[in-house]
C-alpha cells in the first residue's frame, strides 16, 4: 500500500516583508519552506509506514520546478519517493483545478491507501485542496485529524478535532486525511536521508503524463476569479467612556441607539 503525502512549498512567513512603496509582499530573497502543516502530514505518513509492513510513502507536490527542493527535504525525513507535478499549463490553478490535477497524479501512482495533507497552507489558507482531492477521487475525507488510532489496508480509526473536543471516526481506506499540529512532532532529517535525498531522482509529471482534460486545469479550468487583493483598512481605535458607571452606561446606551437605530 502506498501512503501519499501532498505538500506545498510556501514562502517562509516569518521572513516575509511588505514593500512599503507598493504594499505587496516582497517575495524576492524570501526563503521557501514546506508548508508547516504539511510537516505534520509527512511525519504521520512516515510513522504509519514504520508500523505497516510493506507500505511506502510517496510525497507529491504541484508547483514550479524549484518545488523539487521541498520534495527532497521530505525524502531526507524518510519519505521513499518524491513526484513533482509541474507544467506551465497548470499556472493559475485555483483549489478546484489543483485538487483535480493532484487527483490525476494520485490515480497514476495507484495502490493508494491514506492520502495525507496538512489542514491548510500557510499562504492561501483555504483548506480546500485536501477535501477537493477526496471528491475528485470519490473517496471519503476526514479533516482536522489529531490522532490516528488504528490503521490497516481496509480501514482506519482517527480522532478529528472539534471546537469542543474530538470525534472518533472510523473510515474505510482509501481516505484523504488532513492533519492538525496536535497530531505529532515532526522529526528532523537524518544524515542518511539527506544523502539519499541528494541522489534521489524526482520525476516531473506534466498535464500530458497525467492525461488531464485541458478544460479542467490551469487558469481556464479554475472557476474561481480573484477580483481584487487588498489589505483591509485597520480598525479604528475604540472609545473609553469615563466617569461614574451610571452616567457612562447612559452615554453608552445613547451611542448604541445612535449607531444601531440611526
Amino acid at each position, binding site marked *: 500500500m502506498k501512503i501519499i503525502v501532498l505538500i506545498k512549498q510556501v514562502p517562509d512567513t516569518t521572513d516575509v516583508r511588505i514593500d512599503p512603496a507598493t504594499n505587496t509582499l516582497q517575495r524576492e530573497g524570501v526563503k521557501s519552506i514546506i508548508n508547516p502543516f504539511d510537516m505534520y502530514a509527512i511525519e504521520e505518513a512516515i510513522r504509519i509506514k514504520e508500523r505497516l509492513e510493506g507500505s511506502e510513502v510517496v510525497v507529491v507536490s504541484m508547483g514550479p520546478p524549484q518545488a523539487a527542493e521541498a520534495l527532497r527535504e521530505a525524502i531526507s525525513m524518510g519519505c521513499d519517493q518524491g513526484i513533482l507535478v509541474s507544467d506551465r499549463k497548470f499556472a493559475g490553478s485555483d483549489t478546484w483545478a489543483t485538487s483535480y490535477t493532484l487527483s490525476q497524479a494520485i490515480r497514476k501512482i495507484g495502490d493508494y491507501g491514506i492520502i495525507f495533507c496538512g489542514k491548510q497552507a500557510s499562504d492561501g489558507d483555504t483548506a480546500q485542496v485536501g477535501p477537493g482531492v477526496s471528491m475528485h477521487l470519490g473517496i471519503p475525507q476526514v479533516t482536522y485529524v489529531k490522532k490516528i488510532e488504528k490503521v490497516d489496508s481496509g480501514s482506519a480509526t482517527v480522532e478529528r478535532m472539534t471546537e469542543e473536543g474530538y470525534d472518533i471516526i472510523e473510515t474505510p481506506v482509501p481516505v484523504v486525511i488532513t492533519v492538525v499540529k496536535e497530531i505529532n512532532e515532526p522529526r528532523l532529517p537524518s*544524515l542518511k536521508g539527506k544523502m539519499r535525498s541528494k541522489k534521489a531522482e524526482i520525476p516531473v509529471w506534466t498535464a500530458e503524463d497525467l492525461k488531464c482534460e485541458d478544460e479542467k486545469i490551469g487558469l481556464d479550468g479554475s472557476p474561481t476569479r480573484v477580483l481584487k487583493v487588498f489589505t483591509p483598512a485597520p480598525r479604528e481605535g475604540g472609545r473609553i467612556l469615563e466617569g461614574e458607571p451610571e452616567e457612562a452606561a447612559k452615554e453608552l446606551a445613547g451611542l448604541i441607539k445612535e449607531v444601531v437605530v440611526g
Partner: protein
Amino acid sequence: MDYLLTEEQQMIKDLCHQIAEEKIKPVAAEYDEKNEFPWPLVKVFAESDICGVYIPEEYGGLGGGVFEMAIAAEELSWGCGGIALAFAATGLGTYPILLFGNDDQKKRYLPDIASGKKLAAFCITEAEAGSDAGGIKTTATKDGDHYILNGIKQWITNGGEAEVYTVVAMTNKAKGARGASAFIVDKDTPGVSFGKKEDKLGIRGSATREVIFTDVRVPKENLLGKEGLGFIVAMKTFDHSRPGVAAQALGIAQRALDESVQYAHERRQFNRTISSFQGIQFMLADMAIQIEASRALIYSAARMIDSGAKNVAKVSAISKTFASDTAMKVTIDAVQIFGGYGYMKEYPVEKLMRDAKITQIYEGTNQVQRGVIASALIKEGLAKKRV
C-alpha cells in the same frame, strides 16, 4: 571563513546546528537546572544518524573520523555543552575500540554505538589517579578465561547511562605504567554498579558518576589489544578525543559570541545601542579573533590526525588547550557584556561560563596539556640536534 568542507561534512555541520537550534536550545536551561540526563535528545541524535559520524561504514557508521566528530561536537555544544556530551563522551569511550579493538570486538560493539542504541563511557580517573594515571588502583586479575575487575572509577561522564564501558585497570601492579590493560565491560555484567551522581558547576545536562567494579568477571575476549597496553590505549585515545573537547569548547564560545553580538545590538544605554561603544566593539572583535583561531586550529589538527599522521599528541593538546582557554575567556567576556543581566540565570550566558570551565580541566588539565606539548617539543629538539 571557508574551511572547504566536503558536501558530507557540511551536511553534518548543518544538521547538527539545526538539532542544536531547534531541539537542544529550547530545553538546555531546564536540563541545566534539573541536572537530568537528556535521553529524549539522545533519541534525536540517533534518529538523525549523528551517533556514528566517526565510525567506519562497515560497522554501521558514516565513515568519518576525528574531523566529523569535532564538527558535530562543535555544533551540538553550541546548543548545550552538557547535552552534547552524551554524544562526545561516547566518542571518548568508543575510541579505544576503534583504535585497538579487533574485528570481533568492533563487530560486537560499534554497530549499536553507531546507531545510537548504546552510549559509551571511558573509565580511567580514580580518586587518587587523574592527571597521574600511574596511580590507578583498580585491578584486573586473570582467572582462566576471564579477568576479575575490582575498584572504583570516579567522575565518569555518561556513567550509569552508557551500556559500554572501556576501562583501564592494572593487570600487573609491579610493572607500573606498563602493567595496565584496557577492557570493554558491558553495563549489565554482574558486579558493575554506580555510585553517587555528581552535582556539578556546569555541563549539568550530562551524567557524571562513580562506576564501581566488584568482582566483575570480564571474558578475555574483551581485553583491548594486549595485556600491558592500557596506558598506550589511554594516550592514543586522548590524542583522538581531545579535538572533540576542543570542539565542545569552540561551540560554547561561538554561542557566547553570537549571544553577545545580538545583545550588544539590542541593549541601549545613553540613548544608543551598546554595540556603538568602542569598548564593547573591541571585546567582540577579540572574542571573534580567538574563536576563529580556535576553529582553524581544531580543524587542522583533526584533519592531520585523520590523515594517519604519527605523533599527533602535540597538535591534539595544542588544539584542546587553546580552544578551552578561549572558551573560558570568551564566556567571561560575554557575561561582562551582558552586565547585570549576564549574572542572572534568566539569560543564557552565565551557563556558558559554567559549562566552559570543565573544558580546561577534563581529558587532561591544561597544565597536563602544556606538559605534553613541552615534552614533544623537547623530544623534537633533541632529534634535530642529533641530525
